[in-house]
């Protein structure tokens, strides 16, 4: 890292306590020089692209007042229930979810919240597809959504494989031929319960959750896409005035 310029060294105390001890030194809040380094660069970029006003808005454009825009939120709500019920199942184990009535309830809760997750994710996908949700610089948001959809399918597939019943065995025995035909059988062995269980309760849920968080941040970064036919005009960022 390069040495700070003499002017920077004069303005920025190395330790804030030094500034308070020496009354002749300027207070740290008076620093006007642009800081360098990757930490400051990431902070400045986040402050510019994702101010809290954009991340946690209290008002939305009027066109957001439609049931179509509810599908994405319901998908997230279903994902919360999937994770919560799955956490309980992972803590208690397969004997519990097969034998006890409460275990069967949580097993069903996990299963049906997954059904809700997929149903509303597909409805959200339809809405964004026919509404061309990738317009006005939102292509990456659309692509991350597609990746979430694909990863979710694999996650659900591993879930079917780790039910520990005859159904999961039947699915695994049939699926092994399909997976082997793709050449992935050596890395993704559907007959290996430990591998499928580890993927299902750790790697894939973390991946889906992180991707969903990224997807939400992307949506908040650019706002909800305008309906087709609505004239596009760039919306002013926080601190800017509309021309």
């Amino acid at each position: 890292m390069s040495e700070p310029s003499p002017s920077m060294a004069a303005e920025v105390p190395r330790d804030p306590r030094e500034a308070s001890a020496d009354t002749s030194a300027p207070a740290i809040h008076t620093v006007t020089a642009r800081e360098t380094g990757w930490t400051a660069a990431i902070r400045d970029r986040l402050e510019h692209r994702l101010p809290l006003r954009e991340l946690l808005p209290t008002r939305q454009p009027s066109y957001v007042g439609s049931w179509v825009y509810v599908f994405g939120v319901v998908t997230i709500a279903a994902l919360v229930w999937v994770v919560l019920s799955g956490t309980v199942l992972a803590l208690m184990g397969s004997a519990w979810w097969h034998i006890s009535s409460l275990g069967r309830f949580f097993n069903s809760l996990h299963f049906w919240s997954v059904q809700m997750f997929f149903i509303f994710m597909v409805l959200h996908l339809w809405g964004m597809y026919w509404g061309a949700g990738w317009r006005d610089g939102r292509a990456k948001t659309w692509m991350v959504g597609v990746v979430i959809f694909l990863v979710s399918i694999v996650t659900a597939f591993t879930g079917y494989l780790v039910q520990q019943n005859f159904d999961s065995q039947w699915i695994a025995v049939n699926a092994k031929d399909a997976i082997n035909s793709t050449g992935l059988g050596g890395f993704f062995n559907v007959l290996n319960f430990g591998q499928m269980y580890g993927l299902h309760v750790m790697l894939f849920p973390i991946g889906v959750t992180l991707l969903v968080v990224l997807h939400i941040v992307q949506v908040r970064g650019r706002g909800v896409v305008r309906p087709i036919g609505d004239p596009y005009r760039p919306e002013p960022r926080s601190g800017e005035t509309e021309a």
Partner: protein
Amino acid sequence: MDAPATYFHWGFILISLPNLVLILVMILLFVAALLLPLPGHRDRAASRGEGDDE
């Protein structure tokens, strides 16, 4: 639950009754979401005298 599902077979299309019902319900839900107003939204927009922007 243990009995096999009823299947429909039209040419190259083969689909079970539960899957067909689910797809039809999803289509109905999507059309309803397009047509039905969100409760309270029109009232708030009218009271603000807004109709175009946030």
